[in-house]
């Protein structure tokens, strides 16, 4: 076992796959000579050269689309968005080109590629740099949407995303790039669409993903002191969604709270709540609740920002409300 920062785990996944498969190239702003805005791609230019680690102008619409075209004829691009906030100027390319090309060409062309970069809130980055794009991409058939919480999952899931034969949106986090975790020395690949039960419990299921896994784990610890035993399920992949693990957990605990960073209105949580009540209405003991970012653009001031983001206290409160104690 090696202890790696998450950025190192992500880099290891890319480097291993690029050594293995020369159809893969990395393209984005500052990925090469600057060694990555968040140093995820540090040293990659040196190893792979300018042919495969390609700096771009600030031109997301252009280079995201360029990636789709290259993927259609057999390459496997990694398109790095400096943050997913900037992907919104390339939204058309991800949705109308990458996600739809396989269907609208009658199966003749596909876009095997990974769009990746940090997503969601960091700290004090204000309205335009704090967006969680989960629901924006999970909405569209044709895309896969994947995220992780720790270094081992970051490595194993990115490996799988790089081998996937269609477009994958891979959501990272600025705040956790430096977080360390153990990653197995041997190669490992985590198939997309497999949720992970991070903590087993019997009283309620916390359904979450990304760095909110840690919020949920902190809440679980607090609740444990009061004899409340919650399960924490990390979905890891929003599309495809691991219904089996999700339903098995909630069928067991009969209660659920969904915790995510995206806004409440039409967020991914709404979809999960809908699916839970459709499948498990008769076993649910209480309405499924949601703890999400509040429905305001992210404010800059720290005190206001803290009010917006989900935190352990709000999760504890929701769990208690569901349990009635």
């Amino acid at each position, binding site marked *: 076992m090696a202890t790696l920062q998450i950025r190192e785990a992500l880099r290891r996944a890319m480097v291993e796959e690029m050594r293995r498969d020369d159809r893969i190239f990395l393209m984005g702003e500052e990925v090469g000579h600057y060694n990555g805005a968040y140093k995820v791609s540090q040293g990659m230019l040196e190893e792979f050269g300018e042919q495969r680690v390609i700096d*771009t102008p600030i031109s997301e*619409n252009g280079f995201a*689309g360029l990636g789709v075209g290259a993927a*259609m004829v*057999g390459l496997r691009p990694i398109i790095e968005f400096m943050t997913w906030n900037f992907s919104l100027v390339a939204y058309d*390319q991800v949705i109308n*080109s990458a996600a739809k090309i*396989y269907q609208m060409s*009658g199966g003749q062309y596909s876009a095997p590629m990974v769009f990746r970069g940090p997503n969601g809130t960091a700290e004090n980055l204000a309205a335009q740099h704090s967006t969680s794009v989960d629901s924006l991409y999970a909405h569209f058939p044709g895309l896969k949407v994947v995220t992780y919480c720790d270094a081992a999952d970051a490595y194993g899931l990115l490996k799988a995303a790089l081998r996937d034969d269609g477009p994958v949106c891979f959501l990272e986090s600025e705040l956790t790039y430096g977080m360390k975790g153990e990653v197995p020395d041997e190669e490992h690949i985590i198939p997309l669409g497999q949720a992970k039960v991070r903590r087993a419990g019997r009283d309620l299921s916390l359904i979450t993903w990304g760095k909110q896994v840690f919020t949920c784990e902190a809440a679980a610890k607090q609740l444990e002191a009061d004899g409340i035993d919650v399960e924490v399920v990390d979905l890891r992949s929003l599309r495809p969604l691991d219904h089996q693990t999700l339903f098995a957990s909630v069928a067991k605990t009969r209660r659920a709270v969904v915790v995510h960073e995206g806004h409440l209105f039409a967020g991914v949580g709404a979809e999960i709540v809908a699916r839970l009540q459709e499948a498990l209405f008769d076993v649910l003991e209480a309405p499924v609740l949601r703890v999400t970012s509040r429905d305001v653009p992210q404010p800059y001031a720290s005190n206001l920002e803290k009010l917006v983001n989900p935190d352990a206290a709000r999760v504890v409160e929701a769990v208690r409300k569901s349990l009635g104690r």
Partner: protein
Amino acid sequence: MDAATQRGPAQAEAQASPHSAVHTQGGLLPLPTQSSLPAITRDELLGLYRQMALIRRVEELAAKAYTQRKILGFCHLYIGQESVAVGAAVATKGDYWMAAYREHGHAMAKGTSARAVMAELYGRRDGASRGLGGSMHIFDREHDFLGGYGIVGAHVPLAAGVAFAAKYRGEGRVALCYFGDGAAHQGAFFEALCLAQLYKLPAVFICENNFYAMGTPLHRQSALADMSLRADGIGMQRDAFEGFDVELVRERVARAADYARAGNGPVMLEIVTYRHRGHSMSDPAKYRPAGELEQYKEESDPLKITLRRLTEDFGVTEAELEALQAGVEAECEDAVAFAEASPIPDPADLYRYTYAPQQTTMGVGEAAPTFTIPALRAQKEG
């Protein structure tokens, strides 16, 4: 009428020269003054004429089927512009092509059969895109026709990506991208050209300027009349010319393709053309000035121009032309019959083309199947 709308056949001679002036700023190599193509022969020109006639007839029959509600949705016809795609195809048969939504003609010029196009318009299983794409999304992998796209200008970056892949693998192939004057205002178009020039990609960007972005004439959508001037701000080589004469298109596109293929970087072309029909089947095109359409049909119809050349300069006879037209008619009738007889898509296939089936192995320790960069491949093999 101002200058923008007055550009037309009468101005052809006057405008050809400034547009064709070689742009050498920024250290760009000039475009070749002659293409690598041999002089056109009687048979070749006859073949190009037949291809244009076939496209026109397919479009006419598509219009008829549309009014019968056999073809649905949006349907944008290429009538009047046939010389552009047909002329461009001569030097680029083995290259990659990408077009917008007025692409039935491009697909056919690239090699897609009239049958496959018509069946796609009918939404049938034997259509080029299996009935999933329709008029705006004709794809034909066998002929490297990478589609018709419906978001104006958004496919231009994709074409840059195809050119990127061609260069990455050292294929010696070029990506041709067609779009209209309307697309030359989109951010995606500018971004794609900037990237293509920065990376010196083997691409030819072809703006088919037909003077109307849907119902908005050129002078109300652009302060520039010549769309190829966009390339100047990007440092890209460019050319502009009238595209009604298929022989001229053949030669000038070949020069651009030769240039890009040789590794000199991309080229932007503005090819002036004119559509005889409305923007789509639902557009009666009442926004055109009186007499404009009639003038273009009279003086700038690609079929008439080439027909005159064939009869006057190559001695093609009436009998030959009749036989040719009969052949076109038969091919089109066959295409319609084929489309009518083709089954509708199987509802069981509804979800089949949402996600590509996984073929790449997830096996630990396994090597990837291919090496695509020639230098790396050589290293690996040798």
